[in-house]
């Protein structure tokens, strides 16, 4: 299973991506949100995207998901251009967005139902419920779940389609500090188990250093990737090791300057 997932995992290429929206105060002008964003993800890589709010991180994810068209530039998964949302790019939001009218089990299998392949892949539902440790909550409705459990269900729901790229839009942002650290390990475990390529948007510098292979720092107005920092620390990482803290202060300094410029 892991081998198949590895072969399927495919790199994402973003080349000179541009996107503007009508300015909210002036209907005749447009605000450039993304101005020439370029990067690529290798298969199986976990890359974080950090930056101040309003720098276009979420817009970038929506474009990659195919939920919105870009103005210019290339978006490729492998060699296929992205034109519309589909199951090969999963998306997890800060709000788990579980369908409240479905039980946990039915939420997790929603992707299989949507693609009409539930019958063939029935046993995978159990596999993913085990993977995120929610077997005993199978028949529970989402409003009974805690924030962490709901987000685990949302991750399982996104992963069940074996996406080539999993896009995570501040998925742990709404959790309390302790649950968040536990969930970071949880996401890492899922990533190591399935070797899915992941692009993680976060505003938490510690989270980015703790989890990712690389960190891309975005600056706002217009949104660009200002710097890419590879994280060469061995896993599992120590949150308070010297190297960790040095990286942290580097990034803080950079963001500070970036904010003033």
């Amino acid at each position, binding site marked *: 299973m892991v081998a198949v997932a590895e072969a399927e995992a495919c790199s994402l290429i973003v080349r000179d991506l541009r996107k503007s929206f009508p300015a909210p105060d002036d209907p005749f002008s447009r605000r450039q949100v993304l101005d020439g964003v370029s990067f690529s993800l290798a298969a199986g890589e976990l890359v974080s995207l950090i930056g101040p709010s309003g720098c276009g991180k979420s817009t970038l994810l*929506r474009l990659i*998901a*195919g*939920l919105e068209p870009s103005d210019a530039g290339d978006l490729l998964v492998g060699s296929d251009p992205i034109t*519309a*949302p*589909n*199951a090969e*790019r*999963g*998306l997890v*939001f800060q*709000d788990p*967005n579980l*369908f*409240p*009218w*479905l039980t946990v089990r039915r939420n997790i299998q*929603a*992707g299989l*139902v*949507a*693609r009409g392949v539930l019958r063939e892949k029935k046993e995978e539902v159990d596999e993913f419920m085990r993977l995120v440790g929610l077997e005993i909550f199978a*028949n*529970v*409705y*989402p*409003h*009974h779940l805690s924030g962490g459990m709901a987000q685990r269900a949302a991750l399982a*729901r*996104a992963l069940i*389609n074996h996406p080539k790229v999993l*896009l995570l839009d501040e998925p742990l942002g709404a959790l309390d500090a302790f649950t968040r650290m536990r969930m970071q390990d949880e996401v890492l475990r899922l990533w190591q188990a399935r070797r899915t390529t992941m692009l993680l948007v976060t505003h938490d510098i510690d989270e980015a250093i703790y989890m990712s292979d690389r960190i891309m720092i975005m600056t706002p107005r217009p949104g660009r990737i200002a710097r890419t920092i590879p994280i060469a620390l061995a896993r599992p990482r120590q949150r308070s090791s010297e190297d960790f803290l040095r990286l942290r202060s580097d990034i803080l300094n950079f963001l500070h300057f970036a904010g003033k410029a």
Partner: protein
Amino acid sequence: MEAQEDLIPTTVAEPASVLRWRTMLAVPGAAAATFGVHLLIAKSEPPLESHSYRLLFGEVIAVSIVLALMRRFFPRLRQWMARMWPVFTAAILFLCVWDVITLGFRLLPLPYFPGPSSVLRSLINDRVLLLDSTWHSLVLLLSGYTVGVIAGLISGICIGWSSPIRYWGMPILKVVGPIPATAWIPLAMVLSPSAIVSSAALIALAVWFPVTMLTASGISNTRASYLDVARTLGAGRGYLIFRVAIPAAIPNIFIGLFMGLGASFLTLVVAESVGVKSGLGWYVSWAQGWAEYAKVFAALIIMAAFFSTIMTLLFKVRDRVLVWQKGVIKW
């Protein structure tokens, strides 16, 4: 009172059982009092007139005493009695007051406001016709309501989902919808040869508007992020409409169903008293024509029971469909 007792649970235990006995005795007590008052008032009336009324209270007293004795063995029965007995007591006392005002002091003009005993007698004597009228009302109501709900759901989903349909449909809805369905009666009578068919169509029209309106707003207010998530899970249009937008709109749709039900009751009664020659609405105006006001009241009582039963059924359906929305686990 209750709140204070809750604060001091230790002192509640003793008086609670006394209270419970008082509650238990309230129903037979009130029934006996009403019975006695009635005997005093109805001395001058022919005994046949109030025979069944007296029988009723004899039964109420007997049944309530039997239940009070049995409650020790059935905890569910005990809970039900504790909840319902105050209401029953009030209802019986209401009958007593009604009796005193009408038959006792004759405070209300008599042919129009008969006492409870003669209403009960009409209820029993005319039961065949009343039952038949109820049946006809039920058939008419259900056929009109079903057609209206189906039409309303279809138009509501279309208007809520597709913006071209919304553009062309909303003006029609806004102009035609608010007209009370009963205002179409003159036109409906001309258009359709059968009063039953045109009444069913009017009921359907009355139901259609609120169901369409609420369904459309529910569908178009589906949280965008649910739709986004579904798209990234590989959902096509069918899944987005039937498995995301419609379930998300169900709470709203039920509000429309309730509003439509209220409108359908109104339209049913008006249509029956104007055009259709059967049903409870017809019965009321027919009895009024003969100045038999006891029958009018009897029909009103049947209507109250009939309509509130249907309303309760719809509530039960909603509770089943919307388990996911409630705070309690149910399965």
